[in-house]
């Protein structure tokens, strides 16, 4: 059986050793996930072009965007594809640092460089990689509450 560990790095080696002792294989691409209650992910597992999986630290993430069935993780290093659905990714990320701004985009608050308000209940966010994303009306007040404006 393959299992993916989604725990803090302090406990990762200990748990991985015990699971391996029980005959369970640790695989980043596994469908089953063993996670830690009350803890948000320090990283996201993404696919790399050469095949296999890699970790992208939460500090590196600028946006997570959904395009159809694909999840794109935008970082300063580039764009990576991830598995799952956007709401699943959102549930793993710290809501104090990541905010849903539209039905298809999650933004890292620390990566926002500028906010431009509009008269039509929208914000345009300029991100650290130069891209611009829109805070739609649905998430307008949630965004304001998060920033306290």
């Amino acid at each position: 059986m393959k299992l993916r560990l989604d725990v803090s790095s302090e406990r990762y080696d200990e748990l991985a050793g015990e699971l391996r002792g029980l005959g369970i294989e640790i695989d980043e691409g596994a469908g089953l996930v063993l996670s830690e209650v009350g803890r948000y992910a320090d990283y996201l597992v993404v696919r790399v072009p050469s095949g296999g999986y890699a970790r992208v630290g939460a500090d590196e993430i600028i946006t997570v965007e959904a395009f159809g069935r694909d999840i794109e993780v935008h970082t300063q290093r580039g764009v990576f594809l991830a598995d799952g659905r956007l709401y699943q990714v959102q549930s793993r990320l710290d809501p104090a640092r990541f905010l849903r701004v539209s039905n298809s985009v999650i933004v890292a608050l620390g990566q926002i460089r500028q906010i431009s308000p509009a008269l039509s209940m929208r914000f345009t966010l300029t991100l650290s990689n130069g891209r611009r994303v829109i805070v739609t009306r649905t998430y307008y007040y949630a965004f304001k509450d998060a920033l306290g404006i």
Partner: protein
Amino acid sequence: MSTPIPWIAVFGALGALLVIAGAYYLIYRAHVNRALRRAGSARKLMAEPRTVTLVCLIFALVVLAAGCYLLGYKAAYDRFEADAAVSPAVEIPPLTLAEPSAAQALFDSVLELAASPGDGQSVSAFSLSFLGGEFSYMSFSLRYPQGGNSLIQEIEVNASGQVFTAPPLSCGAERYDAAVPVDVLRDFISVLDGYDWPAGESSSFYSHGLTEGISPDGEYTYLVVENGALTPLTGSRAGRFYSFSYIFTGHNNVIYVYIPA
């Protein structure tokens, strides 16, 4: 060709609105970005630009409406003042007369003043209510509004402490039919004192203008001015006369006065 003041006000209000809304937008944007950099610090809420824009718009519309109203009022008043300055209107301030014996002189002077503009040689029908007792003062205000042929006459009489005010007469054609020359009116006034007028609850004189012949019907009292005094008339009389009626409602009776034309 100069730009009308209301348009200047409209564009001024819109310009002020745009400046205020634009300035607030910049302040709000700075506030939002400051909040982003100070995440986690004390929150300070600001109204959204669209709310401020809406409030400013409503305020500008109210101010604009009030301003246009005041400007229009001032323009109309200035025009009225300018028209009044060139009109031949005569306005006689209220006069006070302590001695009843001086009433005739007062009335003469008033009529002379009133007769000066335009076709003011005729004074329309009027109402006098002072005959129930001695009057202590009369005041007349005769106006000839500019731009029309109407005559407005207001008469106020204080008779034995009671003030009677004749309603303003906006004289149309039917009123001019009842108009009499100033001299006739003066003669009429002069003979009023020599007669024992019955007092009623409400007594008024009315002018009926020029009539042809007199035919007493026996029901009412008919008086004719002869030799400067009122003389009762019993039979018919030929000729042209200016006629007045004195109506006293308390006795449901009428006295007709005729002055030879």
